[in-house]
């Protein structure tokens, strides 16, 4: 194998905790009710096209993404729409949600259920993008950007590389890892489809070195597929951040405030490539995904979960919550969100659920900043968190903007490393919000 690559600036190395790496993906039984939020992707919420009392089939379109940045939503189950009401989601807020009482599966017509490997791509570029849009595919790495928007290359720009993100640098999470091991061939065909859609002949799959088996497996499979290369990456967080991944793989730096296409790259997650494969070859909408449930002293696993399943169902499958559970996290420990309730449903962006018990749940005591500069040295964007924290504290928005607070990718490396336990990212997020508001109020 070729040498491991990485991004040059900053980064940390949190304890990996990949306890569920050896656990094969299991299918989670369909819960009694699913709760499908209308806002599951970046951009505008989708608009429901069904009513209370309607009977829906598995895979049926139930909400349309009407705005440019928005995505269709399909029913993940067969059943009756009980109500369209507010329900708590991972953000902690109550959002419009379609609640469906489930029955045994009855699939929407046109969805192929015979999942035999199908490597023949018959659709044209335009048809692929259209299908991806119809089937509600969004980025499955966590940011949930609608995939069809990413595939529509803006006028005057040209993609050279398709970058496939198999890094999974967040500790504990293993859903992408398992998918690469178990659905390697499908992912590669999905990549071929994506390559056709954006008209590139080179794709690079980046995988972190703690998944050697996946690197080897996909490298071997990739020999059959033209133009797909697998590249091992050093263990360093946030290796899976889009800009850092591009830098590591093709040594190009996305300019501040710009998108990857600026340097000829389109980045997609391995989970997305798999979803694209299913959408194109089997007409299957994005109605399920692999979710890792894990934690120290928690017997977790990797499950294929229908969208809208309350995480309580996942927890029950693993024997319930340990008594001393104090924190539940949606996503990884570095970027995930602490949840208020186990009624929160799995959505298209849910890569993992973490169960933290007492000693891990609380933050460190906060000391005075000792100006050690560790936050500066670990920032992968080359920002100065120590300075940004002070600027936000002093409400100096103007200078926060000129110090590029907007460039922060919220990876959390600064707070992770701070020996004084200062809530650096909290402050920077606050400042980003405020500065973004100011920028918007200027009317571009």
């Amino acid at each position, binding site marked *: 194998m070729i040498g491991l690559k990485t991004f040059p600036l900053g980064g940390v190395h949190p304890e990996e905790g990949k306890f569920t790496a050896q656990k094969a993906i299991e299918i989670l039984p369909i819960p009694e009710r699913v709760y499908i939020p209308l806002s599951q992707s970046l951009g505008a919420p989708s608009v429901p096209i069904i009513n209370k009392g309607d009977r829906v089939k598995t895979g049926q379109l139930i909400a349309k993404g009407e705005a440019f940045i928005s995505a269709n939503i399909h029913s993940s189950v067969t059943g009756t729409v009980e109500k369209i009401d507010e329900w708590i989601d991972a953000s902690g807020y109550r959002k419009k949600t379609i609640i469906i009482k489930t029955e045994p599966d009855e699939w929407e017509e046109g969805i192929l259920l015979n999942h035999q490997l199908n490597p023949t791509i018959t659709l044209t570029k335009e048809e692929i993008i259209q299908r991806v849009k119809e089937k509600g595919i969004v980025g499955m790495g966590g940011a949930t950007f609608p995939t069809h928007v990413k595939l529509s290359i803006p006028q005057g720009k040209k993609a050279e590389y398709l970058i496939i993100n198999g890094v999974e640098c967040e500790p504990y999470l293993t859903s992408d890892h398992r998918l690469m091991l178990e659905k390697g061939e499908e992912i590669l065909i999905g990549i071929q489809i994506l390559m056709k859609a954006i008209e590139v002949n080179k794709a690079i799959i980046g995988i972190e070195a703690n998944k050697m088996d996946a690197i080897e497996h996909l490298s071997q499979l990739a020999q059959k597929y033209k133009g797909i290369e697998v590249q091992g990456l050093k263990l360093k967080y946030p290796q899976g951040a889009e800009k850092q991944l591009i830098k590591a793989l093709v040594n190009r730096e996305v300019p501040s405030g710009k998108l990857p296409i600026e340097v000829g790259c389109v980045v997609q997650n391995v989970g997305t490539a798999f979803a694209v494969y299913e959408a194109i070859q089997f007409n299957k909408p994005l109605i399920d995904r692999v979710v890792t449930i894990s934690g120290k002293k928690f017997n977790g696993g990797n499950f294929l979960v229908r969208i809208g399943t309350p995480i309580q169902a996942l927890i029950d499958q693993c024997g319930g919550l340990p008594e001393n559970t104090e924190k539940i996290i949606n996503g990884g420990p570095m970027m*995930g969100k602490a949840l208020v309730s186990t009624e929160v449903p799995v959505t298209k962006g849910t890569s993992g659920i973490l169960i933290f018990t007492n000693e*891990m749940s609380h933050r460190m005591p906060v000391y005075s900043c000792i100006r050690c500069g560790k936050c500066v040295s670990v920032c992968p*964007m080359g920002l100065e968190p120590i300075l940004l924290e002070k600027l936000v504290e002093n409400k100096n928005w103007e200078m926060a903007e000129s110090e590029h607070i907007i460039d922060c990718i919220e990876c959390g490396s600064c707070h992770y490393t701070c020996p004084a336990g200062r809530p650096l*990212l909290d402050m920077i997020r606050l400042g980003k919000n405020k500065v973004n508001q100011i920028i918007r109020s200027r009317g571009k």
Partner: protein
Amino acid sequence: MSTYVLSGSPHVHDKQDVNKIMWGVVYALIPALLVSIYFFGLPAFITTLIAVVSCVVFEYIIQRYIFKSSDVTIKDGSAVITGLLLAFNVPSSLPWWQMIIGSLVAIGVAKMTFGGLGKNPFNPALVGRVFMLISFPVEMTTWPKVAPLSTSLTDIVTGPTSLGIVKEGLMKGETLSQLMNNVPSYTDMFIGNIGGSLGEISALAIILGGIYMLYKKIITWHIPTSYILTVFIFTGILWLINPEKYADPIFHLLAGGLMLGAIFMATDMVTSPVNYKAQIIFGIGCGILTVLIRVWGAYPEGVSFAILIMNAVTPILNKTIKPKRFGGK
């Protein structure tokens, strides 16, 4: 309603915290302390003990009774470091009451008037040392000769330091080759078998502490390396120009407080810049100033002054020298 803990990401944290860093520095200072006790005997131990105890006590009194703070930080180890470093910067024969006054200035003036740990612009131990040097010039420059494992507190033989020998000799017009005969061998200087300030004498012990701190990621290489290299190169150039007038670079590295300063004082996080680029410039500045003061200044030693001056420059460095930004121009 649920009772789960809610907080923003990240939800995991590095194991290192302020206390561990500070106590790590204390451990790193132990080799130098042991060497000083070996060569200067009991007085070295007593002087260090007075400094450490008075620094900690002053910090406690000031926080508890003047600031009326319920949160007393003496356990974080930073006052212990100040005490140790302060003691390391003085002769072992320094009268106890002068040591206590130095500690009061270090903790009370240099640290606490600015609000305590993390807020002081100058290294407290260096402020204390310079204060004592100005207030008690005789006691602060009366250097006991080494007497391994001595327990005597009274019969102290004194002599000048290597830097003093060279400085005064050159001012009297003697040539360097004559003067170097009166200077201890480089091996003795490296090990610490020389007169001088308590904790400065052994380059070896200090370097060991430095390696420990590098390993524990308490310091990075940037400041010590740029500082020491600058002194080496600058004095090297002078020496090449006129070896009869300027001492050789190895001498400058081993003599005086350079090693202690470069590894333990200039690297003080609170008073040095926060990014690597600025840290390197900080180290170079310390190096240049040290040589300027040693060679042309009024004092034989320049490390304390050099670092204090660069402490004053630190905010400007932080403001003007920016780290490389990802995606920036």
